[in-house]
């Protein structure tokens, strides 16, 4: 029972990070029908911005470590990473995807792969390929309850992830921008005929997605303080699976998908089949897609003639 709860908790913490990355995939997909394969690497970029900003902050404000001041510093580092990634997301869309808006969709998929390669190899070129130690922005504490152990990091990850998901949900359903976004997602052409500035909506969607990836990058760096330029590949892939599992284009689906993948991986990792862990997410995904071809929450749309 103890082991079960421990694995469940670990799974939820990992799943929350997958969910944050998956949100970026699902939003971009929902609006453009584009699988943005570079998204996992934007996540890496966020971590690295946090690494440099946090490194600067911890060396220059050494005496503040451990005090209440560490929270605003951590917040500022996260904000900086969000701004940097948002900017990158905007440029990425502007340079690599917008020119292909009217081209076959698969062309933008290849540029997405190109951007992904660019970030990975460029990261190794600029940051160097060796793993870096992510600065300890906030002191770590262990929390024990009923035989299971957790850290304040895992709780921070959960809380921050929930806050950002709530904000996103509010943006999509509670604001005018969100309504425009849903309109663009529903029907691109009609939305633009109705006077919705589709280009701007798409840009902002990319920015939001990249900002969420930056948040995930910082949270990841905090809980797993080893970062390197290729760190985005596997979490990116898992998050992508999570997005598809939940029904790609569907925001709550991405969250649920992320949690499912995180929890299942945690249980497989703790079993004797741990050497199959990387494949298990796909097995689950295929199993679910065979019964629900559009994911858990995806709407089934009969094909129109």
């Amino acid at each position, binding site marked *: 029972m103890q*082991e079960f709860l*421990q*694995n469940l908790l*670990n*799974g939820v*913490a*990992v799943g929350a990070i997958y969910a944050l990355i998956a949100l970026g995939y699902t939003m971009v997909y929902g609006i453009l029908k584009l699988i943005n394969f570079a998204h996992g690497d934007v996540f890496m970029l966020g971590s690295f911005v946090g690494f440099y900003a946090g490194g600067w902050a911890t060396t220059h404000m050494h005496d503040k470590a451990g005090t209440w001041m560490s929270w605003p510093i951590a917040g500022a580092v996260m904000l900086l990473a969000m701004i940097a990634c948002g900017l990158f997301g905007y440029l990425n869309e502007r340079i690599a995807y917008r020119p292909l808006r009217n081209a076959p969709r698969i062309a933008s998929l290849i540029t997405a792969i190109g951007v992904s390669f660019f970030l990975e*190899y460029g990261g*190794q*070129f600029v940051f*160097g*390929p*060796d*793993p870096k*130690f992510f600065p300890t922005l906030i002191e770590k504490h*262990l929390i*024990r309850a009923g035989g299971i*152990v957790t*850290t304040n990091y895992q709780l921070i990850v959960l809380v921050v992830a929930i806050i950002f998901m709530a904000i996103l949900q509010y943006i999509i359903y509670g604001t005018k921008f969100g309504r425009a976004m849903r309109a663009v997602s529903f029907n691109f052409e009609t939305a633009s005929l109705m006077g919705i500035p589709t280009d701007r909506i798409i840009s902002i969607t990319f920015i939001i997605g990249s900002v969420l990836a930056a948040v995930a990058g910082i949270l*990841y760096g905090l809980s*797993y*303080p*080893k970062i*390197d330029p*290729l*760190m985005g*590949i*596997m*979490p990116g892939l898992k998050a992508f699976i999570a997005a598809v599992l939940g029904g790609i284009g569907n925001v709550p689906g991405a969250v649920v998908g992320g949690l499912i993948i995180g929890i299942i*991986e*945690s*249980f*497989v*990792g*703790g*079993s*004797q089949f*741990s*050497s199959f*862990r*990387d494949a298990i997410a796909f097995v689950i995904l295929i199993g679910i897609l065979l019964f629900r071809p559009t994911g858990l929450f995806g709407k089934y749309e009969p094909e129109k003639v």
Partner: protein
Amino acid sequence: MAQTCTRVRMCAHSFGLVTDVMKRNHLILFAAALSLLLAGCPPKNESGGAAAGPGDIVIGEYGSLTGPQATFGQSTHNGIMMAVDQINAAGGVRGRKIKILTEDDQSKQEDAANAVTKLISQNNVLAVLGEVGSSNSLAAAPICQANKVPMITPSSTNPEVTRKGDYIFRICFTDDDVGENMARYVVEQLHVKRAAMLTDVKTDYSTGLTATIEKTFTSLGGQIVGRASYANGDSDFRSQLTAIKQNKPELIFLPGYYTDVGQIAIQARDLGMTQPFVGGDGWVSPKLVEIGGKALEGCIYANHYSYADPTPVVRNFVQSYHDRYGAVPDGMAALAFDAARVLADALKRAKKLDGPSVREAIAETKGFPGVTGTITIGPDRNAVGKKMIFEEIKNGQLTLKATIEPKTAGVAVKTAPH
């Protein structure tokens, strides 16, 4: 740097120019022409080291300068370049300078084969240095063997590598050496009989080491009470550790690379596990303690040498490496440094400067004073006669726990089949 920037800008500018002026469809042709042009350009000063002259002895290096194993590849490259520059500064070999041509293999096996083929057939290298990953060395070794070009791998531990032929040499220990000594040390010195095994299923290094540790450990009466695996580059190991924790081992074998070890230790301590981890030479890096910190207290690993060793040969190496690269060298850098110097030493002794003679000279290497120990090339072309040491991490510092004399290390060499 400024020069580089202007070049890049010029390049980018010409790109823009092309898209504006030429028809779009011509860009493809342009790209093809450009890459052809680049391929045809004579390589200028590729080594980044001393200027090349016509009388230079050309040595090839292939390594993972990019890709998942790039961090090891870069260290190796640094070690080789430093060794060669030191040798050249001291007058070179036979009055000639050594020139290193480096090719990247992106940590991919078929690229390693491409790179070595290029070095041998296009650049006519006399000998080849590389790789870290045994799988990449295995891909390149048959090509070196077929072309009769000696190859020295600084840090591929798979015993299979040197069995590829009589032109393939190795500076580091093999999996058999390290695994056997690790198991022996744990049973005989630490008196531990119940251990768990955490394997990295993605790297050949870890799976290879796991097999030999397990074999020796169980033959000495030990028991593997828990097994789990992860994949190199994972970040969450809590579920595997939770599973191992239930089996209450006295210690945990962790034959992985230092890039993962730190994280694993941190998460184990978070889960309340106090068992020490025991690892192999893949742990050797200053990054290990930087990432793992306090979590690694009491952990032990097998090593070729200690960078805190006060002997002058090690001191000089660590000091000059630090002066040059601003970092403490890891195990890969030290092995690469030795590999390059063993090769240079063989070049001095070789009767002629051709493949077979250099091969013979390398094979005759005896008692070479390397940073990682005294290197003698044994009959199966592995380095024998090196001491293996076990180091414990105490207060963030490495302390020597035990030294295993070459006699014991030689046991594995005897059992290695040909």
